[in-house]
């Protein structure tokens, strides 16, 4: 059995969160993400969950870290200005290996710029926004259905690897309405809780580079800190080996599983002179442009900007002459694609700012300019 809904992307995200087992949301409303908070404020109490409107985004990120250590799958939703404020605590979540989901419905930026317009200006903030070395996971939906699916997937990945996971949506996907189909049986990764034992180590490297996570109140008496810590969780800040081992493990648990985590969809790439690479809302314009084009144009849709699927993209683009990266900023994932292609192809940027989706005709113009077969 499955159910169908004609709803907004933001509502689909909230539905996905509940389906994935989210039972705690803390956030500060911000356009164009507000409907996520609004829906969860209404729906979470019905399933035994809690919703808290916090005083700001710094506190929101702190609250969901606490919620997660309290044993509840936890989430917040925000936009550019909010994600900037959250960065300090996001770093803490990486260091303390706290599974949380952060939804960013991106709008015109920097600063408060264009609250009601679309952009993809926070892609590098999801990657490098906090300080230090860490490996984030981020998913970019390009339909209302994907906003539901990717929110579920974000919770699953967060639990599997004990990491913060970003859902990098945008105003177009957040606000438009489309049909979604919700299956009765959705694959959910439940939180792995440890068995009680005298020699339990909360930050040991056992499964996927991580270890099952106890909740506060379970009686494990563990220490959670942002300081460099040993496997017991005790600070050990002056020992280079402890730091190296900890950070390597935190990075490797994602990097060693890149093949499993990375996802993209490729069409027509074989034998194409030109390949378009895109993610999020602009994918909709690219697909429409390809339908209208009489050229053989390849297309790669990136589902997981982070970790960046560089090896897969290098393989798919190895025979192409030109790569066109279409994104709603002045060049962010473009640099990643350029790095992945290792100068085998010319990588061009179609960077669109101002808040409107590029039109299919604008994309076709760029493709025509490149020539190709």
């Amino acid at each position, binding site marked *: 059995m499955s159910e*169908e*809904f*004609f709803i907004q992307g933001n509502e689909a995200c909230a539905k996905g969160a509940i389906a994935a087992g989210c039972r705690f949301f803390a956030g500060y409303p911000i*356009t*164009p993400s507000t409907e996520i908070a609004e829906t969860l404020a209404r729906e979470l109490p019905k399933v035994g969950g809690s919703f808290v409107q916090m005083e700001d985004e710094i506190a929101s990120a702190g609250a969901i870290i606490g919620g997660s250590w309290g044993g509840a799958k936890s989430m917040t939703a925000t936009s550019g200005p909010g994600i900037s404020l959250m960065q300090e605590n996001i770093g803490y979540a990486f260091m303390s290996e706290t599974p949380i989901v952060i939804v960013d419905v991106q709008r015109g930026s920097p600063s408060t710029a264009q609250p*009601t317009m679309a952009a993809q200006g926070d892609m590098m903030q999801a990657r490098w926004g906090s300080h230090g070395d860490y490996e984030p996971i981020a998913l970019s939906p390009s339909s209302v259905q994907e906003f539901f699916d990717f929110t579920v997937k974000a919770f699953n990945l967060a639990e599997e690897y004990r990491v913060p996971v970003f859902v990098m949506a945008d*105003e*177009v996907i957040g*606000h*438009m*309405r*489309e*049909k979604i189909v919700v299956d009765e049986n959705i694959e959910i990764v439940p939180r792995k809780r440890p068995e009680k034992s005298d020699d339990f180590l909360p930050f040991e490297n056992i499964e996927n580079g991580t270890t099952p996570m106890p909740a506060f109140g379970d009686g494990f008496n563990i220490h959670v800190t942002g300081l460099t810590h040993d496997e017991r969780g005790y600070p050990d800040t002056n020992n280079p080996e402890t730091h190296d081992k900890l950070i390597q493990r935190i990075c490797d648990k994602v990097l060693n599983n890149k093949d499993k985590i990375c996802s993209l969809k490729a069409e027509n790439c074989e034998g194409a002179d030109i390949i378009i690479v895109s993610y999020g809302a602009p994918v*909709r*314009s690219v*697909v*429409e442009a390809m*339908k209208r084009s009489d050229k053989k144009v390849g297309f790669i849709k990136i589902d997981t900007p982070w970790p960046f699927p560089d090896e897969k993209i290098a393989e798919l683009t190895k025979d192409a002459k030109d790569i066109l990266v279409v994104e709603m900023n002045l060049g962010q994932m473009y640099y990643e694609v350029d790095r992945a292609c290792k100068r085998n192809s010319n990588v061009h940027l179609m960077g669109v700012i101002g808040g*409107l*989706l590029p*039109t*299919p005709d604008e994309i076709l113009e760029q493709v025509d300019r490149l020539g190709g077969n």
Partner: protein
Amino acid sequence: MRTEIRICGFGGQGIILAGIILGKSASLFDDKEAVQTQSYGPEARGGASKCEVVISDSTVDYPKVQSPDILVAMSNEALMKYIVDLKDGGTLIVDPGTTDVEDVKEFIEEHNIEVYEAPATKTATDEIGLKIVANIVMVGAITKITKVISKEAAIKAIEVSVPKGTEEKNIAAFEAGYALAD
């Protein structure tokens, strides 16, 4: 086939709900694909309100309306603002109680526009006794004139979209609008 629809009027007329009902009818009850978008920002309150729906037999990729096949105007301000985007040979549906097609006569003639007048606000007030259902009256007129959604699908979509307890009045409003276009 891809059909682009733009409905516009004042904030508060239920323009957005009318568009949601069209999208819901098509995608949940008519076995078609639909995407609905709307304008956000200061103009959504009090001033012009705009709602767009793309309906197609196959997947709707580009979600925005570029040049509408159908323009529905429920305020003169919105009519004047958006008429220029209407496709050649397109369909214009107006509420004569709140618009004046004389103001856009030139465009209508030059671009071979098919014009229908559906007095939605008057019908809602006189026949249903509720001015606020003018949007649903308009959905009835759109359904009959354009056939972009089926009558059965529209009724089902209205039933699940309007506040509980108001279904009967809203269906009556839809029927009144449907009859207007006879």
